[in-house]
Structures are given as structure tokens and as C-alpha cells.
């Protein structure tokens, strides 16, 4: 009754299970904690700890009715007051933006809580469904202080944290009292007793582990190995729509990327289709904007889409005054067009970066690779020394634009260091100006389009989620009523025999 799973490589090195004060949370957070709201496979909001919710007509208040009988792992009951205390944890943390629009929360009754809004926030339900809105026991949280989530993590989720070795593995055990759950959940505890989440940075090692039976499931199978997995009699793959996006931010404050023409040139030098076909075997999509294609905000006007156009790339670079030299590198006033391309040390990024490096070289931009440990690179951005990098994110909401391009978050997450008054105005309109979803969508499209026009990044690739598992040992849920394989998936996962 024990299952070992390898986490996605981009989750390797997470340092705590503190959902409130951390901008990187691994899959385990979905299992230790519950959220008020979850999403189903169609991205529709479904109840998790909240049984139902009502939005006031003016959008200035939300009332959530909570499920009864919910308790934390330590036995503390979960009630309306818990939600109020929990919300009070956010101010001052890096996830405070989630509830920026919330004025305060009030206890209506034992199981009813009302959010009083500063302004309408069409995105509140989404925010509540993200992993960063996972609900720890506020008392336990306060007690542990800074170290919360490192040794102890107290949630209401289907699994309890048994041990956590950073960068190594997390061991979870079943919460036998679990009688709730998101959306289609049966209200029964998980079927497996023990779950080990291993962190293996080298995705191919992870694959070999799966292949040799060392682990039961990979949450992210490199496309290179899909054929192998499908070919193996005991292994199967499960494909889910992707929610990741790989892109290349350019630091607009660092030469030569302080010149928009250079950014344009480099942005159009990236051959997304070639990468998709050759590196990822055609699995996934060639990205042409900053948002995953399942989001309506990704539907921007064609003129703002960024996709491979070598003529335009070369022309932009010529316009910027960079002339092609004899050795294939452009020069201007005797200086070579040579930049440092930051990347992470795992093979996915290294390989991708090498391709990007070669594609930049093709338009006369010389890139020198600088590799960082995945756990360290975000801290390196805080020095502001980066010029251009290869990165990826996992998010299924348009507000990610604000996260990565807002002038209020320079260095990191705004790695591009974009600080543009017009962008800020458009951002405010999108984030806080909209009263309903339609307005919000339109505002984000405008914001997205404007950002693209400034070329602070180049889109690269939109992966699909490929989960590989040992079909001889695991019984997967027949239909997964969730966008990703997390809470519901592990609740319903079973072991044969």
C-alpha cells in the first residue's frame, strides 16, 4: 500500500511546505492541505472545503458555506473562524496579492464566512483554488514561526506529512479521518497508505527508476521517453493538458536588451516550431504568447504574437545598429553582440538553452551559457546581473502576467525588469479594474498585447503534462475530474492486489 512517485523536476529543491509565504510549492502541498475551492477537468470551480459560495451582486462580498466535520491533522476543527485567522496570515508575504482585493473576512456563523471586498475581484475564486491558498492550521502556523512547513505542516488534506528532506524526498501517510475532498471526491480517505514523493532533478534518472520498478509513477515524463514508456508492457502514460510555459525573459535594464530593437530581434530569432518538433517530438505546442493556450486571455491579435521570423529578427538587429561580423557575430562600435544566457542545471533546461543558444547564434547573437542550481537561480535573479534566461512557469491564470511583469516585483519574479507606465496602467485595469470576467478577460488581453509589443521575453514552448506510471501496480482513476494530477488523483489512486 505504498507508492513512490517522482515529482516534476521543476519542483525539485522546494524548501518548505508553507503555502502562505512561499512562491514555490510542490505537489505535496496539494495533498497535505485542502483549499476552499477546487477546479474540475473543465476548469470549472467545484467545492472543496467550501460547500457552496455566493457572490454579492455588486461583487463586494463573498459568502462561503463550509463543510461540516472537517478537522486538521492535529485534531483542531476547521470552521469559519479558521478561515478568518488564515486570511490574516497573508499580509506582508509574497502571496499577499492573492487577497489584495479582500478588505476583511467575517464569521457569519460557525460554518459560514464572508469576505468583504475592497473592490470586486473576478479572479477571487481562481485565487482560492491555487495551491497558495492552501489552508494550514493558523495556530500551528503561528507557533512554528519562520520554520513552518519545514518540519511540520498541519493541514486538513488527505495525507499527513511524515518527513521532509529538502531536495530528497517527502514521505506522506494517509489521513484516515479524511471524509471530504474536492468536487467529485467520494468523501473517503485515500486508498494508499503511504506516499513517497522523491525529488530527482535528472528526469532521465527518474525515467530509469520507473522503468526498473524503483518508483511507481513519474509526474513528468520527458517527451524523449514517451515512446519508451508506451513501448514497455508494464508502463503507461497519461496525458493531460499542459499548464506550463517555457519562455525567455530579457532584462530590459541591461545592455544590450535595454534596446527594444535588440529584444525584438532576439525574440523573433527563436524557432518555436523547430524546438517543438526536434526537441519535444512534436508533443506540446509552440508558444507564441505568454499564457497557456487554454486561457482565453491567450487569444491576442496576430500582430502581437511572437513567433519565429528570421527576416524580422535580422532587420530589427540591423536597425539597432548591430552589423553582422565575419565570424557570424554582430558588432556595434567594436563591441560584440555577446550576452550571458542563464539557465538551470537540470538537463531539460540545459538542453533547451543549448538550442536557444544556437538559434540566437544564427542571427548573430553570441550567448554564453551560465548554469545555476535550480534552487539557487531565483536568488541569483535578485542580484539583477542577468541579461537573458530560459525559464518556465506553471500557472493557469492570466494574472501570471502581473506576477512576472509588474514593476512592483523587480528582480524576481519580474526577471525582465519591465517598468513601463503604460504597462502598469494596463495591469491595474486588468488586475483590479474589472468588475466581471468578461471585462477582466478583455483587460488582460490588452495588457498581454502591450507586453508583447515591448518584447521583454520570447515565448518558446508549451509542454503537455505526461504522467508515466506502472500499470501493473497502480490503478489510476478512471476519469480524472481535475486539471492536474494532484489531490483528487492521489485520493483515488490505488494499488493492485
Amino acid at each position, binding site marked *: 500500500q505504498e507508492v513512490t512517485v517522482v515529482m516534476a523536476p521543476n519542483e525539485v529543491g522546494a524548501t518548505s511546505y508553507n503555502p502562505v509565504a512561499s512562491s514555490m510549492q510542490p505537489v505535496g502541498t496539494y495533498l497535505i492541505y485542502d483549499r476552499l475551492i477546487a477546479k474540475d477537468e473543465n476548469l470549472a470551480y467545484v467545492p472543496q472545503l467550501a460547500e457552496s459560495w455566493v457572490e454579492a451582486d455588486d461583487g463586494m462580498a463573498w459568502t462561503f458555506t463550509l463543510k461540516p466535520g472537517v478537522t486538521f491533522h492535529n485534531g483542531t476543527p476547521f470552521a469559519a473562524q479558521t478561515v478568518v485567522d488564515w486570511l490574516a496570515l497573508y499580509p506582508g508575504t509574497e502571496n499577499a496579492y492573492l487577497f489584495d482585493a479582500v478588505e476583511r473576512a467575517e464569521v457569519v456563523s460557525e460554518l459560514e464566512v464572508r469576505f468583504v471586498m475592497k473592490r470586486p475581484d473576478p479572479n477571487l475564486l481562481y485565487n482560492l483554488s491555487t495551491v497558495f491558498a492552501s489552508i494550514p492550521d493558523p495556530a500551528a502556523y503561528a507557533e512554528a514561526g519562520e*520554520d513552518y512547513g519545514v518540519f511540520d505542516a498541519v493541514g486538513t488534506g488527505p495525507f499527513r506529512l511524515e518527513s521532509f528532506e529538502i531536495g530528497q524526498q517527502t514521505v506522506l501517510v494517509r489521513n484516515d479521518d479524511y471524509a471530504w475532498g474536492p468536487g467529485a471526491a467520494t468523501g473517503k480517505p485515500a486508498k494508499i497508505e503511504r506516499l513517497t514523493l522523491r525529488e530527482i532533478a535528472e528526469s532521465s534518472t527518474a525515467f530509469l527508476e520507473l522503468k526498473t520498478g*524503483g518508483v511507481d509513477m513519474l509526474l513528468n515524463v520527458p517527451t524523449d521517453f514517451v515512446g519508451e514508456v508506451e513501448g514497455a508492457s508494464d508502463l503507461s502514460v497519461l496525458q493531460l493538458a499542459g499548464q506550463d510555459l517555457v519562455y525567455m525573459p530579457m532584462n530590459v535594464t541591461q545592455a544590450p536588451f535595454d534596446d527594444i530593437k535588440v529584444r525584438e530581434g532576439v525574440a523573433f530569432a527563436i524557432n518555436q516550431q523547430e524546438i517543438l518538433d526536434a526537441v519535444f517530438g512534436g508533443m506540446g505546442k509552440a508558444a507564441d504568447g505568454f499564457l497557456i493556450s487554454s486561457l482565453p486571455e491567450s487569444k491576442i491579435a496576430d500582430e502581437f504574437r511572437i513567433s519565429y521570423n528570421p527576416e524580422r529578427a535580422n532587420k530589427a538587429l540591423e536597425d539597432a545598429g548591430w552589423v553582422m561580423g565575419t565570424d557570424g557575430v554582430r558588432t556595434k562600435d567594436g563591441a560584440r553582440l555577446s550576452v550571458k544566457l542563464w539557465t538551470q542545471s537540470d538537463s531539460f533546461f540545459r538542453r533547451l538553452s543549448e538550442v536557444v543558444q544556437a538559434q540566437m547564434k544564427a542571427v548573430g547573437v553570441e550567448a554564453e551559457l551560465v548554469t545555476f542550481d535550480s534552487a539557487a537561480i531565483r536568488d541569483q535573479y535578485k542580484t539583477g546581473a542577468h541579461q537573458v534566461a530560459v525559464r518556465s512557469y506553471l500557472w493557469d491564470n492570466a494574472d501570471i502576467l502581473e506576477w512576472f511583469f509588474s514593476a512592483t516585483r523587480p528582480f524576481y519574479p519580474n526577471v525582465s525588469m519591465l517598468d513601463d507606465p503604460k504597462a502598469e496602467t494596463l495591469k491595474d485595469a486588468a488586475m483590479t479594474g474589472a468588475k466581471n470576467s468578461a471585462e477582466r478577460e478583455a483587460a488582460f488581453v490588452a495588457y498581454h498585447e502591450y507586453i508583447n509589443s515591448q518584447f521583454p521575453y520570447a515565448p518558446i514552448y508549451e509542454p503537455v503534462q505526461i504522467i508515466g506510471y506502472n500499470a501493473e501496480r497502480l490503478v489510476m482513476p478512471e476519469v480524472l475530474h481535475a486539471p492536474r494530477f494532484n489531490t483528487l488523483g492521489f485520493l483515488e489512486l490505488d494499488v493492485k492486489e
Partner: protein
Amino acid sequence: MLGYVIRRILMLVPVFFAVSVVIFSMIHMLPGDPIENLLRVGSSPAQREALTAKYGLDRPLVEQYLLWMGNVLTGDLGTAIVQRRPVAQLVAQALPYSLTLGGLALCFSTVLGVVVGTIAASWRGSWLDQGLMGGVLFGSMLPNFWIGLLMILVFSVSLGWTPVSGARGWESLVLPVLTIGLGGTALVARVTRIAMIDTQGKDFVLLLHAKGVHPLTIQVRHVLRHALIPVVTILALRIGWILGGAVTVEVVFARPGLGSLLIKSLNQHDYPVVQASLLILAMAVMLGTLMGDLLQAAMDPRFRDSLT
């Protein structure tokens, strides 16, 4: 003898401090500011200062060093900045893995090396000698990580005998131990062989033959005994080598251990951990030399007497 041990341990004290100074200064030469790691997005300069003060990073280097040493002496290795745990705990978690791996690899290479060396020396110049020595030498000259990968390919992937990676159960120890052990075997075998050949040519061996002692007795009870002394000396000197040498192997086999802890912390700029791991390794080296000397004293009466 006891006096010698005490003296040796006392001698370790200045060395220990010298080493700690070297390690400390080296760490402070590393680029990057560990505080960056702690700062959350959008934190204020005040928060930064508070953190700097919390870790004592605002004080003069000498004071920082004294503070660190003071804590180390009371058993407090500090707190990991990125991993946010007591360093002592991290090290305590990693050390058993390294010790098992290193210890087993050491035993493996010692036993195999001594046997190979003895056989090679006994049939010196024969094809057996050439073959065996060539074999272990060859094994020790291949890059560790490559051998590791090949072993995975052969034993885990093709044959499915051993797990690919990780540290669960003795099966997962087999390949790493083999990979590290192979390098050590060559060294031990070479030292054993040379020492035995050297000893075989000594007058006392000729005299043992002249006394009518059986050649096998001579080889095992007398010659090998002499040959083991340099083997012990070399191995003792290389304790740190074996513990830390697991670095590549631990990475290839994704095993926890001091080596991978060190690499990870180095990559993450988690300096308290790097500092402590290096200190532990240095201490292992020093203890190794001490053990080597004691073992040598136990084996060699001449050495024993020269100590008093």
C-alpha cells in the same frame, strides 16, 4: 602509548583550528550573499538588515569566525540558510549514508586489493600478475561517473539486478560501492604488491626459507604482515578521499550523503552547510591519520617504540 594518543589528540587541536580558518576564509571568498536566499520578494532593506544581523553577518570577520567556532565547539553547527534546518541535523542525516558507502567501499577495496596484490606479488611477472594488475589499474583509470552510468546501463537497465538510484536497502549500495571501490582497489593492490615484492627480497625472508618454513606460511604470516603496514598508512591518509570521493558517485546514483549534501549546498550557496561538511570531512581526515598511526603502532613494534 596512552601518552602518545593523548599527545596526538592534542596535536589535532591546532590543526583543527588551522583547518577551520582555511575553510572559513574559503567560504567567505565564495561569490554571492547568502542573505539573498532568505529575502522574500519585496522585502525591505530593514528586513534585510535584520536578517543580516540575525546571522551575525554584519560583524567583523574575526568576530564571525569566533562566533562560529564557539558554536561549533558547543556542538552547534548553525542553521542552514536555504534548507532552513540545523546543520547538525542535515549532517547527521547525511553522514550515515556516507559512512556506510565509504566504509563498505573501503572494505571492498581493501579486501579485494590485498588479495589481488598478494596473488600478483606471489606470482610476480606471470601473466596472472600482469592480468590482475592491469585489470585493477584499468578499472581505476576510468571516470567514476562513466563507470557508474555503464553499471546502471548494464546491471539496472539491462539485467535489472539492482535499483537505478537512491538509498533504499542494501541492493542500492551494490553499484555505488563497486564504483568507488574499484578505484581504491587499484591503489591497495598496487601498494600491497609493491610492499610484498619489496619484503620478499628482504634478508629475513631468505632466512625464513633457510629455516625450512613453508612458503605459504612465510607469505601470509610474515610477508603480508609487513606489506599491510604501508597499506594501512595509505588508506588512513585517504579516508577523507574515500568519504568525499563519493561525490560523483552520490550524484550519479542520486544517493544522499555528505558528498551530495556538499554539492547541493555549494550550488545553493548554503554556506553554513558547506562549512560544516568540509569541517566534518577535515576531521575525518585527521581522525583517519590518527587511526592510521595507532593501527601502525599496533602492527609495528618499531613504530610503537619510536613513539615513546
